[in-house]
């Protein structure tokens, strides 16, 4: 196995297309354990962390750009980003310990394509876009389009994500991400739930986006729940409808971390709770917008 | 005379007796006397890892002395962690 650390997107792209089993990585917090567990190591490992654009966090006031290889610790430590996207910042910050946080990245978490990835539901509800580079230029995908199944993405072998674009949080809006893990840290999500709500002038819900992780091959939206919320003030009855819709939207499996019944039931609970937190944050921001 | 108590597992070898008195001054003597009373029990008793004499537990207790009307128990093997 050969290690290379290109310093530009172009150099990385050509390296990828020159060797069929080349693989990009940033933190390798998934790659190393997989190789250790017996997955064949690629011939060429392309380290993206020496490319400036890929380790960057910027905002032009209209949208944020987050380099695909930016350690998630940079996001949680950035007060402006965490204030604007508390849910996304929480989700990124839940990926493992401080040691892992200094290496894990949104690009790695997304492209490892684990159904239980913590950052993906939070990215989906914030309608994050992925800028993908390849031998013939770049293209932009919605994050929800990137993962196509466990361990599979829509990227070609010689493509990689350069950065993520996140439009600034709409006014009167707030997001949240919750997950269920048996311990308080160092666990893979048994269930994950992301929510973003936008309030109308009268305080009722104008728009809601909900997404669940670890309960299906890929992150799933919950349109029924989103509809149920629009126009409501998230009263008890509506929230129970949200919970029911969330459980219904799940297509989970039994595995060493959880059962079908458990994931369905708790998906409803977390979806409900995430909506309540998102609304509180929207109301707080409402005051300041 | 030492008071020897048998755990339930051993009572199958003593015709159900849970407790007997034996005249012996060492554990070795005790086991020999018991083997006469209940043929075959001797081997089983020496296998037991430890012997309790008046509440104190001894491992490898063959030569330990047994005072008059001491209370003696043969214990199963147990291991420290």
């Amino acid at each position: 196995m050969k290690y290379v650390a290109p310093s530009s997107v172009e150099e990385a792209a050509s390296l990828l297309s020159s060797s069929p089993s080349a693989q990009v990585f940033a933190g390798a917090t998934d790659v190393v354990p997989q190789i250790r567990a017996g997955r064949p190591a690629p011939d060429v490992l392309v380290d993206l962390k020496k490319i400036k654009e890929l380790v960057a966090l910027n905002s032009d006031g209209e949208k944020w750009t987050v380099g695909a290889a930016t350690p998630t610790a940079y996001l949680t430590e950035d007060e402006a980003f965490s204030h604007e996207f508390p849910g996304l910042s929480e989700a990124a910050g839940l990926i493992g310990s401080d040691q892992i946080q200094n290496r894990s990245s949104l690009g790695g978490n997304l492209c490892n394509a684990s159904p239980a990835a913590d950052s993906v539901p939070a990215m989906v509800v914030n309608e994050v876009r992925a800028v993908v580079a390849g031998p013939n230029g770049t293209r932009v995908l919605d994050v929800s389009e990137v993962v196509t199944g466990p361990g599979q993405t829509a990227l070609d072998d010689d493509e990689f994500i350069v950065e993520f674009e996140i439009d600034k949080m709409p006014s009167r809006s707030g997001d949240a991400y919750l997950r269920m893990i048996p311990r308080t840290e160092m666990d893979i999500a048994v269930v994950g739930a992301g929510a973003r709500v936008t309030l109308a002038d009268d305080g009722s819900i104008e728009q809601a986006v909900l997404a669940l992780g670890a309960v299906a091959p890929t992150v799933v939206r919950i349109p029924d729940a989103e509809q149920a919320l629009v126009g409501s003030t998230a009263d008890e009855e509506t929230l129970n409808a949200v919970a029911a819709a969330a459980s219904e939207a799940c297509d989970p499996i039994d595995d060493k971390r959880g059962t079908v019944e458990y994931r369905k039931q708790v998906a409803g609970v977390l979806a409900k709770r995430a909506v309540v937190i998102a609304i509180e944050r929207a109301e707080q921001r409402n005051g300041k917008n | 005379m030492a008071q020897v108590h048998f755990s339930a597992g051993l009572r199958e070898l003593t015709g159900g007796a849970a407790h007997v008195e034996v005249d012996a001054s060492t554990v070795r003597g005790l086991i020999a006397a018991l083997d006469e009373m209940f043929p075959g029990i001797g081997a089983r008793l020496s296998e037991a890892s430890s012997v309790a004499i008046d509440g104190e537990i001894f491992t490898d207790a063959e030569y330990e002395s047994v005072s008059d009307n001491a209370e003696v128990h043969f214990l199963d093997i147990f291991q420290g962690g």
Partner: protein
Amino acid sequence: MPRTHITTVINGDETEFLTEDSTSLLNALRDDVGLTGAKEGCGTGDCGACSILVDDRVNCACLMFAPEADGTVIVTVEGLADSGELHPLQQCFLEGAALQCGICTPGFLMAAKALLDKNPDPTETEIRYALAGNLCRCTGYDKIIRAVQEAAREMRGQ
């Protein structure tokens, strides 16, 4: 496989070594550089016993490929004491009996140093979450948390 030449600064010293690209930074430090302070407990980033500082950030050395260390500044537990003078964390771990077998201690010291460098006055909960990536099976964590609190107080000059 040809080996790669790596140049780093380790515990203040310019250090060069040769490594195979697939070798973890942990194995390179232990086998090629001879610093056995960082320990392997799992090799998959789940136990923190191999925690070191890379450019002032705490990392699991087992999750890094050795070539990634090129051009970085690394601090291991062997570099914590300043010419024989123990770091307050080392002193407080000793005084507070915050270690038993000691295999996890190097990792805890590096993670705690990274925490205190960032947050000189952490709450108990903040310390517990910052050290959640370091497993200890002997102590039940109580005395480790207290030792970090004590060291934080001393470093703040209180």
